């Protein structure tokens, strides 16, 4: 800061805040002895623990290997269409059946029969269901990680600084002449 600006700023401080201007700039806080001589080592240990060597290079391979382990069934398009038609037909039939059962006031029976559905699943069907569930969890986790990492973009920092001015404060500030004299 050049001398002229420094003087203008001091003058402004003296004018608007004489009590503060008259005070010594004292630092009453103390850092523990030896703190700064060990900090670099402490940070190094933390970095090594948080980001092991080669972690990022191997991460993609690990994820791909895990994905390849999942059994992916490839269904031909024609077969998929037939399956879809059967599914729709089964759904319509199920709606009619439920409607019929409800009309017969057999609600308890409907609930009981749907409860038995899980019991009737084969172990392979159950394991397939589990795999899909695990995949959902993995996708949620990845989304969360991305969201978390975006929370504090280092480069953009506090562009949205809230300066907490009231309109009176702004008027008062603009009505003072001091800020006009300072060069940058």
């Amino acid at each position, binding site marked *: *800061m050049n001398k002229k600006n420094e003087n203008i700023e001091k003058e*402004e*401080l003296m004018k*608007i*805040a*004489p*009590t*503060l201007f008259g*005070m010594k*700039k*004292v*630092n*009453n*806080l103390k*850092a*523990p002895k030896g*703190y*700064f001589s060990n*900090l*670099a080592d*402490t*940070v*190094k240990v*933390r*970095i090594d623990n*948080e*980001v092991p060597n080669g972690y990022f290079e191997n991460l993609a391979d690990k994820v791909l290997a895990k994905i390849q382990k999942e059994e992916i069934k490839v269904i031909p398009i024609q077969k998929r269409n037939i399956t879809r038609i059967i599914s729709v037909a089964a759904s319509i039939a199920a709606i009619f059946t439920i409607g019929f059962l409800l009309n017969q006031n057999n609600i308890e029976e409907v609930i009981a029969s749907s409860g038995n559905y899980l019991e009737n699943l084969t172990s392979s069907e159950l394991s397939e269901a589990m795999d899909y569930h695990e995949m959902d969890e993995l996708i949620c986790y990845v989304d969360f990680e991305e969201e978390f990492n975006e929370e*504090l973009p*280092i*480069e*953009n*920092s*506090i*562009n949205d*600084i*809230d*300066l*907490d*001015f009231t309109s009176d*404060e*702004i008027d*008062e*500030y603009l009505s*003072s002449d*001091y*800020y006009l004299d*300072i060069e*940058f």
Partner: protein
Amino acid sequence: MQLSDDEIVAQIKTGQDTNNAFRALIEKYQERLYWHIRRMIIDHDDTDDVLQNVFVKTWKGFANFREDSNLYTWLYRIATNESITFINKKKKENNISIDDESYHLHAGQADYLMDCEEIQEKLEKALLTLPEKQRAVFHMKYYEDMKYTQMSEVVGTSVGALKASYHIAVKKIETYLIEN
């Protein structure tokens, strides 16, 4: 011999003796950043946590550092963000309103205030009534004599807005000192 900022950045970016260059960065800026954070957070242990986070984030984010930027203001920016994030998180954990000045006096700072002389104690209390970002602006100008142009790079706000913010902070502090 202390490495220049350009040398530190070049060595880290090119992978030449990265560890030593990063150590040089820490040793060069640790004290300035420590006091910048400490004045905001007051408690040493919390400051230590935040400062370590700042350096870990610096390390992880170095790939995003543009070489035409100023290393000093980039580090200050991370430190300021981390400090404000920490204070807001603490307030949320303690279920205290963001604007509640009593938070600061309940957050382990009362002991420190008792050690100050009366007028210094008043000043510290007055500072704690400022919103975090305004307090950061006040610290950078009043205690660290930072130029408005540098502060502008740190907080990403225009020079004019920063001057107004500092002016208002000073008036608030003066009013507090007189009235209390």
